Each structure stands twice: as structure tokens, then as C-alpha cells.
């Protein structure tokens, strides 16, 4: 268990690291210049009239996670339960992304009513006739290193538990590594989703769109890999923590915590640089409306639908995105979350 100060430091780093993200998201509507609101073409006067109100509303909605988290975090700190901050951070990661997704969709829907012109449209959709696989987006040596590290750590843990019977509760020996391993498996599922993610490529500016989609896919696949490495390290050091004396174990945990914090900061910086490159690539292709042969607006009522023949997990309905319950990834995701809940309850009790 980490000391309370460590959780406070983790939360502080989390707060600081979000500043740049807030600025980046705030600038998103204007990335294409003042004649655009996201991908909606607007007139020159837009930002002097109703557009200014729309932009302000978008910015205010971006602050919703702060409004939720600050009272909760203050309560947790004041009531002496800083360890729960780690769970708050996890919940906030999901909330920030959902809130951003919803805010963008809502603002774009409002802006479309004030659009100055129809965006360029094409009747053609292009797709690569290449099978995408996890192998193509993975580094074989890195996978071997991660796999061997986990195998060696598991062997050490089993040996440690076998040679010291009655000394340890199995949940204490295996709990943390199993939880990390479960997160690791979740990240592999996430990577599978990233690899199979698809965005329609229009018949115009095809190369630019291909470049953009492929760069995005590779960026997220790499990000997931970094996170997997991040969650492999605790599995690897846990046998060492158990093998040394209590004071040395505490020191080892503190070293790991500081390394993890430094690693997070480096990773956050890398992500921001990569995002900048992605934005530059995305701006090379003008927004183009592609046809919708699936007729998603009629198929997908907000927020849930059941369309077994639709290939996507999220369908674009008339009133916003709709989660397709018939998609295999929804079943896998639900099973994974249920498994995580069971694991947490088992380890906690």
C-alpha cells in the first residue's frame, strides 16, 4: 500500500497534466480558422453573433468534470481517504472523454443549424482490401519482453508463496499482480478494438484521409502498448517487494512510484506531441461528407440500439451516437467490466 501523500501527489500530477488537454480541446472548434466551427463551415460574422454563445457553451461544458471532481476530491482528502483518489482518477478518465465526446457532438449539431454552406460531399467510399491484425501493429521483440517478464514474475511469485507457507495470504501475494494482469488483458482488448476501428474514407482526398486514419490508428495502438508496459512493471517488481525486508520494500515501492510518475509525465508529453502531428495531418484533408449506405440515422435511436448486421459498435443516429448492443465488443466489454468488479470485490474482502 502506498502512503497517503503518494495519492495526493498522483492527483496533483493528474490535475496539472490536464491543463494542456483543456487548452487543446478549447481550441478544437477553431482549428480550421474562424470560418469553421469544428468541421462546419460558418460565415465571417458567426463568432460575433450566435457563434460566440455556442463557443462559450462548449467551453463551459468542458469544465463539467472539474465541477464534479473538486467537491469529491476535497471530501476524500478531508475525510482522510486519499487512496480512493486513485479510483476517482480512473472514473474521471472515462468522464472526461465521454463529456468531451458529448460536448463536441452537441456543439456541432447546434452549429449545423447556423452553417453558411453545405460541406463538400462525395458519393464514393473507399476501403483498403488488406486484413488488419494485431501483429501488424505490434513489435515482436517488445511483445516477447513483456510476455517473458510476466512469466518470470509469475514463476517467482509461485516459488515465493510455496517456500513460505502460512506466512502470506494468497490474495496479498497474488492480488496486485493479478489486478495488473487483468488491466493488461483489458489493454490488449482495447488494442484489438483500435486495430479494427474504422472510419469511412471518402472518394475525394483519399490519400490524405488514409494517412490520417492510419496515423491515428498507429498512435493509439502505440499508446496502448506504452500503458501495457506501464502495468507490466508492477508485476515485475512485486516479487522483489515480497522478498526484501519491510523497510526495503517501502523504499522499493517509493522508487517505483516516483519512476511511474516521471514515466507518466514523459508519456503525457509524448502524447501531446503526437496529437499535434495528428492534428496537422488531419487539417490537410478538408471535411467531406460521405454517404451512409447503412442508413444509421434510421437504424440507431439514441443512446442504445440492437443491430446484429451493423458492423460498428457505435452507430451515428439522428440524435447522436448509439451503442450497438448486438456488437461483439459490447459483450466482451461488459464481461470484462463484470470480471473486474468480481476481482476487486474478491481482493478487497
Amino acid at each position: 500500500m502506498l502512503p497517503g501523500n503518494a495519492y495526493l501527489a498522483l492527483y496533483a500530477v493528474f490535475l496539472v497534466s490536464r491543463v494542456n488537454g483543456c487548452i487543446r480541446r478549447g481550441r478544437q472548434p477553431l482549428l480550421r480558422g474562424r470560418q469553421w466551427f469544428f468541421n462546419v463551415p460558418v460565415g465571417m460574422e458567426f463568432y460575433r453573433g450566435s457563434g460566440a454563445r455556442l463557443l462559450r457553451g462548449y467551453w463551459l461544458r468542458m469544465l463539467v468534470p472539474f465541477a464534479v471532481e473538486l467537491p469529491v476530491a476535497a471530501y476524500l482528502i478531508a475525510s482522510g481517504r486519499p487512496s480512493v483518489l486513485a479510483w476517482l482518477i480512473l472514473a474521471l478518465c472515462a468522464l472526461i472523454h465521454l463529456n468531451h465526446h458529448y460536448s463536441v457532438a452537441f456543439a456541432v449539431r447546434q452549429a449545423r443549424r447556423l452553417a453558411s454552406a453545405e460541406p463538400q460531399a462525395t458519393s464514393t467510399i473507399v476501403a483498403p482490401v488488406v486484413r488488419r491484425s494485431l501483429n501488424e501493429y505490434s513489435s515482436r521483440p517488445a511483445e516477447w519482453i513483456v510476455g517473458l517478464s510476466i512469466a518470470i514474475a509469475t514463476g517467482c511469485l509461485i516459488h515465493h508463496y510455496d517456500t513460505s507457507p502460512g506466512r502470506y495470504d494468497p490474495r496479498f501475494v497474488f492480488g496486485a499482480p493479478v489486478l495488473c494482469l487483468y488491466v493488461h488483458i483489458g489493454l490488449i482488448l482495447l488494442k484489438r478494438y483500435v486495430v479494427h476501428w474504422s472510419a469511412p474514407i471518402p472518394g475525394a482526398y483519399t490519400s490524405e484521409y488514409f494517412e490520417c486514419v492510419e496515423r491515428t490508428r498507429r498512435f493509439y495502438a502505440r499508446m496502448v502498448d506504452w500503458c501495457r508496459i506501464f502495468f507490466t512493471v508492477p508485476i515485475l517488481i512485486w516479487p522483489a517487494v515480497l522478498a526484501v525486508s519491510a523497510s526495503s520494500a517501502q523504499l522499493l515501492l517509493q522508487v517505483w512510484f516516483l519512476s511511474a510518475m516521471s514515466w507518466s509525465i514523459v508519456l503525457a508529453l509524448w502524447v501531446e506531441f503526437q496529437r499535434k502531428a495528428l492534428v496537422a495531418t488531419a487539417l490537410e484533408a478538408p471535411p467531406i461528407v460521405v454517404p451512409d449506405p447503412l442508413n444509421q440515422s434510421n437504424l440507431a435511436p439514441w443512446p442504445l440500439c440492437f443491430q446484429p448486421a451493423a458492423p460498428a459498435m457505435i452507430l451515428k443516429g439522428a440524435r447522436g451516437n448509439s451503442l450497438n448492443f448486438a456488437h461483439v465488443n459490447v459483450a466482451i466489454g461488459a464481461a470484462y467490466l463484470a470480471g473486474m468488479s468480481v476481482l476487486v470485490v474478491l481482493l478487497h474482502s
Partner: protein
Amino acid sequence: MYTDSRQVRLSIDAADSRPLYQQVADGIRELVASGQLAVGAALPSVRQLAADLSVNMNTIATAYHELQNDGLLEVRHGSGAFVASTMSNQTEAELLSPLRRALTALLIADWPQTKILALVKQQLRQIRSGST
């Protein structure tokens, strides 16, 4: 640049009068005919291609089924679809029938023979080079 490995492309056109499954099947036929898809080449899964083209999965399944019936595609359970052969298992009469139909339509439309021949040559060149 990541586009080079993705040069083998298939497109569907919402303005085209052919059904979507036919466009997909014809597109794959042309890729095989032009040599862009070699024998043994793995095709994307039904779900992946359907997602990339934003179409119903049944559309791709029907197209693959048609190509399988033609002998161009082999579906191995658990492994996916592969280009089986560049030779169609249709008879000569079956192969010639659509060509005769198209030529008849052009003659009815009063196209001169020279123009039809030039058009056939041009289309053949385009298919072989893989351009649209």
C-alpha cells in the same frame, strides 16, 4: 507515410445503379484481374470490410458468397477469405453472355463500331492497370 501498404483499395459509389454487394464483388474481381490481389492473398474479414465501407455485413457476406461460387474466393473456416484462383470456373458461354449483352446495348444506342472497340480497349487497359 502509411498509405503505400494500403494501395489495394476497393470503392463503392452510392450513385451507382448496381446493388452494393455487386459493386463489392465486381471491385474484388477487378483487383484480382489486374494482379493487385494475387492467388493466396488474404481478404479482410466480413466485419472489417463492412465497417470500412459503412455497409451492412450481409452485403459483404453476399459478395464473398458470389465470388466463392465463381471460384475466385476460398473461405477457410477460422482463417477467413483468400483469393483462390485467378481463373473463373464459369463456362465460356457464361463469361461471354454479359459481354454480348453490353455490346448489344451499345449497338442499340447507335454507337459506331470503332467507338465500341476503342471503348473495349480502354476499359481493358484500365482494368489491367488497376485504375478506375
